[in-house]
C-alpha cells in the first residue's frame, strides 16, 4: 500500500462502520449498560485521588473498626483505622491497571505468536502451536501461581503471570484471523473478485478482525481482574498495605465476627467490576454475531 490514494480510500470504510456502532448501542441495551458501567469504573479509578475522602494508607488506631455510616467514614474503617471507602476507591487504581497490563501482555505476546504462526505456516506454525498447547496444558490459575512462585510475590510479577496465561487465547485468535486474511489476499490476487477495490476488502476485514478481538479483550479483562484478586487474596499479588481488593478480603476474612464489611465490600467491588467486563464481552459477542445480524 505505497499508493497514497489507495490508503485514503482504504481508510474511508472506518467512518461508515462507526455509524452502525451507534445504532447498535441504541438497540442493544446490555452492551450500553455494561459499557457505561465499565466507563464509570475507569472514571472512579482515575478520579480516586480526588474523590476519596481520606488517604487510603493513613492509619488511625483510635478509629479502628468503625461501622458503616459513621461520621467521616461512609463505609466504616478497618482494623488500623483506615477509611474503607477510600481504600475501595483506590483499589480500582490497582485492579484496573493490572488487568490492562495483563491483557496487553496477552494481546501483544499472543498476537505476535499468532501472526508468526499464521503467516509462516509449516514447521514454524507446528512448533509454535505446540508451545501454545503446552501453555494451555496448565489450568489458568495454576500457571499464574507457578509463575508467581518462580518470580516471587508482588503486583508486577502477578501482572506478568496473568498476561502469560492470557497469551494462548490471543495467539489462537490472531492466528485464525491471519489465516482468513491470507485467504482473502489470495482471492484478490487471483482477481476472482473482479474490480473490487482494496477498500471494500478492508471494509469487510476490519469488522471481521476487530469484533472477535474486542470481545476477547473484554472477557480476558474480566478474567484478569479475577485472577489478580485471587493472587492477591492468596498473598501472591499486591502486598500489604497496598489497597487491593483481593488482599483486603484476605485480611478482612480474619475479622468476620467483628466487622464483616471489611471483607464483604471489596468482594462486592470485585464482583461488580468483573461482572461489568463479562457482561460487556458477552453482550458484544451476541451483538456482533454475524449470524444474528441478518
Amino acid at each position, binding site marked *: 500500500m505505497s499508493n497514497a490514494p489507495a490508503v485514503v480510500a482504504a481508510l474511508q470504510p472506518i467512518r461508515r462502520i462507526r455509524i452502525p456502532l451507534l445504532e447498535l448501542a441504541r438497540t442493544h441495551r446490555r452492551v450500553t449498560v455494561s459499557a457505561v458501567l465499565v466507563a464509570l469504573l475507569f472514571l472512579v479509578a482515575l478520579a480516586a485521588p480526588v474523590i476519596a475522602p481520606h488517604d487510603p494508607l493513613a492509619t488511625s488506631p483510635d478509629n479502628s473498626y468503625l461501622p458503616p455510616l459513621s461520621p467521616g467514614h461512609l463505609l466504616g474503617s478497618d482494623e488500623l483505622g483506615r477509611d474503607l471507602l477510600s481504600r475501595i476507591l483506590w483499589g480500582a487504581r490497582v485492579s484496573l491497571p493490572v488487568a490492562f497490563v495483563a491483557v496487553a501482555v496477552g494481546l501483544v505476546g499472543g498476537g505476535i505468536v499468532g501472526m508468526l504462526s499464521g503467516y509462516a505456516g509449516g514447521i514454524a506454525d507446528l512448533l509454535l502451536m*505446540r*508451545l501454545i*498447547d*503446552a501453555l494451555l*496444558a*496448565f*489450568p*489458568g*490459575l*495454576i500457571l499464574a*501461581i*507457578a509463575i*508467581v*512462585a*518462580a*518470580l*516471587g510475590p508482588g503486583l508486577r510479577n502477578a501482572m506478568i503471570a496473568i498476561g502469560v496465561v492470557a497469551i494462548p487465547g490471543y495467539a489462537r485468535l490472531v492466528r485464525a484471523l491471519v489465516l482468513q486474511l491470507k485467504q482473502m489476499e489470495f482471492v484478490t490476487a487471483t482477481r476472482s473478485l473482479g474490480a473490487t477495490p482494496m477498500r471494500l476488502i478492508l471494509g469487510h476485514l476490519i469488522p471481521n478482525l476487530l469484533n472477535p478481538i474486542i470481545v476477547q479483550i473484554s472477557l480476558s479483562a*474480566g478474567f484478569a481482574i*479475577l485472577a489478580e*484478586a*485471587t493472587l492477591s*487474596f*492468596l*498473598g*501472591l499479588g499486591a502486598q500489604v498495605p497496598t489497597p487491593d481488593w*483481593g488482599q483486603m*478480603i484476605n485480611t478482612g*476474612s480474619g475479622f*468476620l*465476627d467483628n466487622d*464483616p464489611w471489611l*471483607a*464483604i465490600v471489596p*468482594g462486592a467491588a*470485585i*464482583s461488580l467490576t*468483573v*461482572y461489568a467486563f*463479562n*457482561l460487556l464481552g*458477552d453482550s458484544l459477542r451476541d451483538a456482533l454475531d454475524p449470524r444474528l445480524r441478518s
Partner: protein
Amino acid sequence: MTTYILRRLVLMVPVAFLVTVGVFMLIHLSPGDPALIILGEDRSPQAIAQVHRELGLDKPLYVQYVIWLGRTVHGDLGRSITTNQPVSIAIGERLPATIELGMVALLWSLIVAIPLGTIAAVRRGSLADQVATGITVAGVSIPNFFIGIVLIFVLSVTLRIFPFGGYVPFAQDPFENIRHVILPAIALGTAGAAINMRFTRSSMIEVLNHDYIRTARAKGASWRRVVFVHALKNALIPVVTIVGLQIGGIIEGAVVTETVFTWPGVGRLAVESIFDRDYTVVQGIVLLAAFSYMAANLLVDIVYAWLDPRISYA
C-alpha cells in the same frame, strides 16, 4: 478408535515434553538458593557447595533436567525442602481430600446447572430464562473465595449451622465429613454451576431446533417426553466435555477454596509450599495439575466420540 487414541497420544508427546521443561524451569527461575533454605544459619561456602553437590545443582542445566525427568517418570518427585518428606507421599496424603471436595463441588454444580439450563432453554426468552442467564454471568464474576467467605459469614459465623473449616475423614465420621465438605463444595462449585448451566442451556436450545424434535412432536410425543427423552441425551453430549475438563482442573479450583476453608488438600499444600519456598513440592503439584488436565482433555474427546454414535474416528 484405537488409531485415534494413538494419534492423539503421539501429538501429546511434544506438548508433555514442553510441560516438563516448563515445570523444571520453575525452580531455576525462582530467586533464592534452595541450599540456603535448607541450611538456614550455617552458610559457609563449603556447606553450600556440599548441598549443591547433594542436590545435583552443580551439574549443567540440561543434565539436571534429564536426571530430574528420569526420576519423575519413575514417580520420584524428590523430597520436600522443608519437611524432607518425599513429595509423592506428601501429595498422596492430601489428594483424597481434594478429590472429595472436587467431586462434591461438581455434583452440586450439575444438580443446579442441568435442571436450570433445561428450563431456561425450554422457556427461552421468558423471565425465568433472563433471570437464569443473568445469574450465570454473575456466577462466573464472583470470585469463588468470596462466595466461600460470604457462606462462612452467613452460615457459620452468624447462623452457626456449618463449621467454618477443617476436615473430618469419611471413615472416621461420615456425618461430620459431609457437614464439613458442604460449604467449600458450594463455594467451589458455583462458578462451575454457572458455566455448566449456560452450556446446558445453549446446547439444549440448539438441540430443540433440530428436525428430529419436530419429528418426535409429529409422532404425538408430549413436550415432557421430547425434552427428557429426545433432547436431553443429545444436549448433554457437549456438556460432558465441559464436565470432563472441570474434573481435570480440580486442583486449580481447589487452591483457593482449600485456603479459605483450611481444607487439608493439595491446593492448600501448594500455597503453603510457595510461601515456604518449598519448590520441589510446588513443582510436583504443578506437574500433577498439568498432566491431569491434559489427561482429562484426551479422555473427554474419547468419551465424546463414544457417546455420539455418529462420530467415528476410523
